C-alpha cells in the first residue's frame, strides 16, 4: 500500500437548527473559528442534516477543497448515516444535546462551552487522517460449526441459506445431539399449550440434503490458529488429521446432564422406578409407560441445580406430565417443587397443565422408600405427607455446559487461564470513592474460581497467548456480554450458541443459533474487507506501533482483551493479528510510551483536544474534563440533554472508544493545562460486565487507582481524578454524579497550575 502524505483541508459547518442559533451567538462563533482556530472555510445553515445541507457538504468534498468536515450541531450519536455518506472524514461538535439543551441561552459560559467544543472538534480533525484498509482482505468465507446438535444444525442451515459454505464437526457418529432424542418439545408456537413434535429429524434431513453443508463425524478440532477470516483449524478423527481455513467458528458444543448429591439421595439408579427426566424422555419415546397411573415429578431446590437448569427442567416436567395425562386421562401427575420457574410464555404451558389436572405441590421431598412412597414436607400445610401408590418418580436434572472437552485431559496452562477468566481482576472500587479491600476481594474471587474451574481440555485448542480455552465465566458457562452481545466471546470470530452459553430449551437454542450465525457471517465478511467486527463494525482504523521507541514492556500484549497482539518470538516486539483486533484502543491506553496510535484516534490527538478545551479559560473559572465512554456514558449524557437536565457549564467532554484506551498522558496533560478535576466514565466491570470491550473498563479502573500517587507528587488532592461506572440508561445519575463532582472541586479549590 502506498503511503501518501495526507493534506488536511478542513471546513466548519455551523448548523443553527433545533434552536441552536437562538441560544448561541453564531457570528461570534464563526469569528472565533476563522480567527483563533484558523479554519477559514466556515458555512452556516439552518439544517445541515437536510437534503440541501448535506448537498452543500457533498459538493464541497467533491470539489476537492475540503476533505474534513467539522459539523457543529447535534450529537455525534444522531444523524450518523446521513453525515457518513458525505464523502470524507466528518467530525462532530456537540452543540445541541450537551450545550443548548442543558445550558441557559445567550450566556457567557454557554458560549464558551460551544466555542471550546468546536475547538476540540477542529483539533481532533487536525490530528486525524482517514483510515485505510490494513490488508487486502480476500479471506475465507467458510464457516466451521462445532457440534451437530440442534444448535449446530440450525446454525449450519441458516448459514447455508445466506450462501456460505459450512462444515459441521460432530464428536459422535450421528447428528441431533440431545434434542434429537426428545419425544416432544416444549411449545414454541401460540397458544403455547400443547407439547410440540420434535423438529430435529426434519432438520437433520434438511442439513444432509444441503450441498453447502459438509458433516464430519467422529471428529474434533485439534488445534486452531489465526483469527476471523483466517482461522486455520486442524481437524482430527480416527484416521488422522486435516488442516483447513475457515472464516469464523460457531461453537455449539451443548451440555451434559447435571446430577447433584442432593438428587442422588432420591435413589436414582438404585430404587426401581426412580429415574431422571432424561431417562423419562427415553421412556416417553419408547412408550414404555402403560402401567404408570400415579407419577411424581420432583424439582429439587438446591442452588446449583438452579444455575444449571435455569427453569428448563421445570418446563420439561410440565411437558412430561402433560404427555402422561394426554396419553391416559386416568393418570395422576404430581409436580413437587421447592421453587418453580416457568417464565415467559411457559406461564401458558403451566396453566394448561393445571387445567389438565396436573397437581403442583410446594414442598421438600424428605425421602423415597423402596416401594416409592414419597414423603413430602408440604410447606403450605406444614405437614409431612406420605404419598404412596406411586408407579414412577422422575427427578429433574440440569445442564452442565460443554465449555471444555471432558474427554481430554486438563492442561495446567488451561486451568490457569480459566481461573484468571473467572476471576475478574477488574477492581470493584472507584478511585478515592468507596474502596474494597483488594486483597480480600481477590482471595474471595480466587476461592470461587477454584471451585468452578471446569474439568477437561480445550475445545478448539486456540493458539493464543491468552491460553487454549474459549473464555468462561463462573460455573463454566462460556463468556458473553449477557445483556447486549450474548454471542460475542473474547476471541473475535468465535461465537458461542446454545446451552454452552447458558442452560436453555431447545427452542431457545434455535434462536441462539440463528443469532450467532448472523454474527459469524458478519465477522467473515468484515474480515474480508479488512474491517473491524462488532462493536466497531466497519471500522477501518488500525493500531500502529512505533517500534523505534517501544520498550518491549508487554503491557499491550497482556492487556488486549481479545488476544490480538502477540510478541514476536525472535525480536519480542508486539505483533498484531489483524483480524482479531476490535479497535478498542486498550493497547493504546496501556502503552507507557504512547507509541501505539490509530490514524483517527491517538494519544497526541486527544492530548491536544484536552488542551484545546481549556485554551481560553479565564483564570477564575473552573474546568472539568470528562472522558466518557462513547458506548454507554456519552449517550447517557446525551439523554440527559434530551431530558433537559441542567448540567454544569464547566464540563469539557471528550468521547473515548473505551475507557481502556485512556492513557495517563491525557490525565497529566489535563492537570498541567489547568483542569480542576477529571472524571472518567466507563461501563460496568466485573463478571457481570457491560463493557463493550469486556475488560477495558476494569483495566482503566486499575490504571487510575495508581493516579493518586502522581497527584500527591504534584501536591494535588487525590479527589481531583475520579472514575465512575455508568449504564446507558443512567442519564439522571450521570448528571448528578457530574454536578456533585463539580461541587466537590469547588470546595477543594481551583487547580494551582491554572494559568501557567
Amino acid at each position: 500500500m502506498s503511503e501518501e502524505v495526507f493534506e488536511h483541508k478542513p471546513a466548519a459547518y455551523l448548523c443553527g437548527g433545533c434552536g441552536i442559533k437562538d441560544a448561541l451567538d453564531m457570528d461570534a462563533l464563526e469569528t472565533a473559528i476563522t480567527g483563533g482556530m484558523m479554519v477559514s472555510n466556515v458555512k452556516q445553515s439552518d439544517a445541515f442534516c437536510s437534503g440541501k445541507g448535506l448537498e452543500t457538504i457533498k459538493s464541497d468534498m467533491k470539489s476537492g477543497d475540503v476533505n474534513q468536515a467539522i459539523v457543529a450541531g447535534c450529537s455525534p450519536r444522531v444523524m450518523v448515516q446521513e453525515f457518513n455518506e458525505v464523502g470524507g472524514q466528518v467530525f462532530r461538535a456537540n452543540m445541541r444535546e450537551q450545550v443548548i439543551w442543558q445550558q441557559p441561552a445567550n450566556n457567557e459560559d454557554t458560549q464558551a462551552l460551544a466555542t471550546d467544543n468546536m475547538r476540540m472538534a477542529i483539533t481532533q480533525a487536525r490530528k486525524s487522517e482517514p483510515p485505510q484498509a490494513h490488508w487486502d482482505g480476500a479471506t475465507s468465507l467458510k464457516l466451521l460449526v462445532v457440534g451437530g446438535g440442534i444448535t449446530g444444525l440450525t446454525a449450519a442451515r441458516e448459514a447455508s441459506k445466506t450462501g456460505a459454505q459450512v462444515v459441521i464437526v460432530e464428536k459422535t457418529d450421528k447428528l441431533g445431539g440431545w434434542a434429537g432424542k426428545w419425544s416432544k418439545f416444549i411449545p414454541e408456537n401460540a397458544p403455547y399449550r400443547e407439547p410440540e413434535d420434535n423438529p430435529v429429524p426434519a432438520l437433520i434431513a434438511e442439513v444432509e440434503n444441503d450441498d453447502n453443508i459438509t458433516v464430519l463425524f467422529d471428529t474434533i478440532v485439534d488445534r486452531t490458529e489465526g483469527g476471523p477470516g483466517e482461522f486455520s483449524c486442524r481437524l482430527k478423527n480416527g484416521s488422522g488429521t486435516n488442516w483447513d481455513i475457515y472464516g469464523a467458528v460457531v461453537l455449539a458444543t451443548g451440555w451434559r446432564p447435571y446430577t447433584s448429591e442432593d438428587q442422588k439421595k432420591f435413589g436414582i439408579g438404585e430404587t426401581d422406578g426412580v429415574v431422571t427426566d432424561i431417562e423419562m424422555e427415553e421412556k416417553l419415546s419408547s412408550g414404555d409407560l402403560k402401567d404408570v397411573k400415579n407419577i411424581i415429578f420432583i424439582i429439587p431446590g438446591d442452588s446449583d441445580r438452579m444455575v444449571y437448569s435455569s427453569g428448563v427442567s421445570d418446563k420439561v416436567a410440565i411437558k412430561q406430565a402433560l404427555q402422561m395425562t394426554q396419553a391416559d386421562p386416568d393418570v395422576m401427575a404430581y409436580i413437587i417443587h421447592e421453587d418453580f420457574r416457568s417464565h415467559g410464555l411457559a406461564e401458558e404451558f403451566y396453566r394448561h397443565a393445571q387445567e389438565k389436572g396436573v397437581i403442583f405441590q410446594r414442598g421438600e421431598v424428605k425421602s423415597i422408600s423402596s416401594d416409592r412412597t414419597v414423603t413430602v414436607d408440604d410447606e403450605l400445610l406444614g405437614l409431612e405427607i406420605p404419598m404412596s401408590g406411586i408407579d414412577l418418580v422422575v427427578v429433574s436434572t440440569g445442564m452442565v455446559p460443554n465449555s471444555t472437552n471432558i474427554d481430554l485431559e486438563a492442561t495446567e496452562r488451561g486451568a490457569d487461564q480459566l481461573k484468571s477468566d473467572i476471576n475478574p481482576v477488574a477492581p470493584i472500587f472507584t478511585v478515592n470513592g468507596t474502596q474494597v479491600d483488594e486483597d480480600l476481594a481477590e482471595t474471595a474471587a480466587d476461592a470461587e474460581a477454584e471451585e468452578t474451574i471446569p474439568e477437561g481440555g480445550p475445545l478448539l485448542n486456540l493458539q493464543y497467548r491468552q491460553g487454549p480455552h474459549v473464555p468462561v465465566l463462573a460455573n463454566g458457562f462460556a463468556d458473553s456480554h449477557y445483556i447486549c452481545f450474548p454471542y460475542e466471546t473474547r476471541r473475535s470470530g468465535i461465537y458461542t450458541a446454545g446451552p454452552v452459553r447458558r442452560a436453555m430449551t431447545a427452542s431457545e437454542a434455535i434462536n441462539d443459533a440463528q443469532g450467532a450465525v448472523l454474527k459469524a457471517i458478519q465477522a467473515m465478511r468484515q474480515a474480508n474487507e479488512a474491517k473491524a467486527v462488532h462493536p466497531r463494525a466497519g471500522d477501518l482504523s488500525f493500531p500502529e506501533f512505533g517500534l523505534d521507541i517501544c520498550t518491549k514492556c508487554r503491557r499491550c500484549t497482556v492487556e488486549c482483551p481479545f488476544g490480538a497482539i502477540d510478541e514476536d518470538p525472535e525480536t519480542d516486539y508486539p505483533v498484531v493479528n489483524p483480524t482479531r483486533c476490535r479497535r478498542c484502543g486498550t493497547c493504546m491506553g496501556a502503552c507507557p510510551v504512547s507509541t501505539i496510535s490509530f490514524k483517527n484516534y491517538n494519544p497526541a490527538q486527544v492530548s491536544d483536544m484536552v488542551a484545546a478545551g481549556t485554551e481560553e479559560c479565564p483564570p477564575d473559572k473552573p474546568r472539568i474534563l470528562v472522558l466518557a465512554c462513547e458506548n454507554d456514558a456519552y449517550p447517557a449524557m446525551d439523554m440527559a440533554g434530551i431530558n433537559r437536565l441542567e448540567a454544569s457549564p464547566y464540563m469539557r467532554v471528550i468521547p473515548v472508544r473505551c475507557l481502556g484506551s485512556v492513557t495517563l498522558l491525557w490525565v497529566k496533560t489535563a492537570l498541567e493545562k489547568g483542569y480542576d478535576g477529571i472524571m472518567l466514565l466507563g461501563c460496568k466491570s466485573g463478571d457481570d460486565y457491560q463493557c463493550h470491550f469486556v475488560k477495558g473498563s476494569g483495566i482503566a479502573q486499575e490504571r487510575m487507582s495508581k493516579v493518586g500517587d502522581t497527584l500527591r507528587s504534584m501536591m494535588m488532592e487525590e479527589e481531583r481524578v475520579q472514575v465512575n461506572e455508568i449504564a446507558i440508561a443512567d442519564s439522571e445519575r450521570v448528571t448528578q454524579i457530574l454536578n456533585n463532582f463539580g461541587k466537590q472541586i469547588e470546595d477543594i479549590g481551583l487547580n494551582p497550575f491554572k494559568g501557567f
Partner: protein
Amino acid sequence: MTVPMPTSSRKYDLNFARWVRDNVAGGDKMNMCMQCGTCSGSCPIGTEMEDGPRKLFMMIRAGMKEEVLSSNSVWECTSCYRCVVRCPRGVPVTYLMQGLAALASKEGYAPKVENNYFSRYFWKSVELTGKTDERLVPTAYFFSFGLIEGIKRSLGNLKIAFNMAKAGRMHIGLPHRIKDTKGLKAILAKAAQIEDQKS
C-alpha cells in the same frame, strides 16, 4: 370415567384428589388453585373456619379425605361468593364448598356444627312450600338443640322478630306457598334421580 371412592380408613389417599376432580361440582377447576390465599383472606367468616379454602384445597391434593370432610369449613361457608369473585385463577370456591358439604353429608361424616341443622330445616321448608319461612326455619333450628335451649334462643330473637314484623319483613299467618308445589317436587325428584345415577 369412574374412580373408586377413596376409603376413609387411610389418612392419606391420593385417589381423593382425583375423585374430587371428577365428582364434585367445580372439582376440575380445583387444580387451577395456585395457593395465593386470596380466598381465605377474603372470607368474612374465615376466623370461624378450621381450615380456609386455600388450605382445604391443598389438603384435598394431599389426599386427606377424612380431615377435609370432617372439617367445619365446608359448613361455615355462607355462599357470599366473595372468594369466587376475587379468585385470580377462576376457581369456583363456593361450588366446591357446597359440593364437599353434600359429599360429607352423604358419606355420613357427622357434622360437628350448627350450620348443618340449619341447612336441614332450610331445605325442608323449601321442599314443602317452595319458600323459606322466616318463622318455621329458625324455630325448628333453635329447638333442634333441645327444649330449654330452644326456648332460650327463641326468646333471645324475639325483639328481632317483632321489628321484622313491624317493618313488614316477616309475614304473619299461614306460610306462603309457591303456586306449583307439585311441579317443584317433580323437579327435585328428577334432580335426585340424576344425582343417584351419577354415583
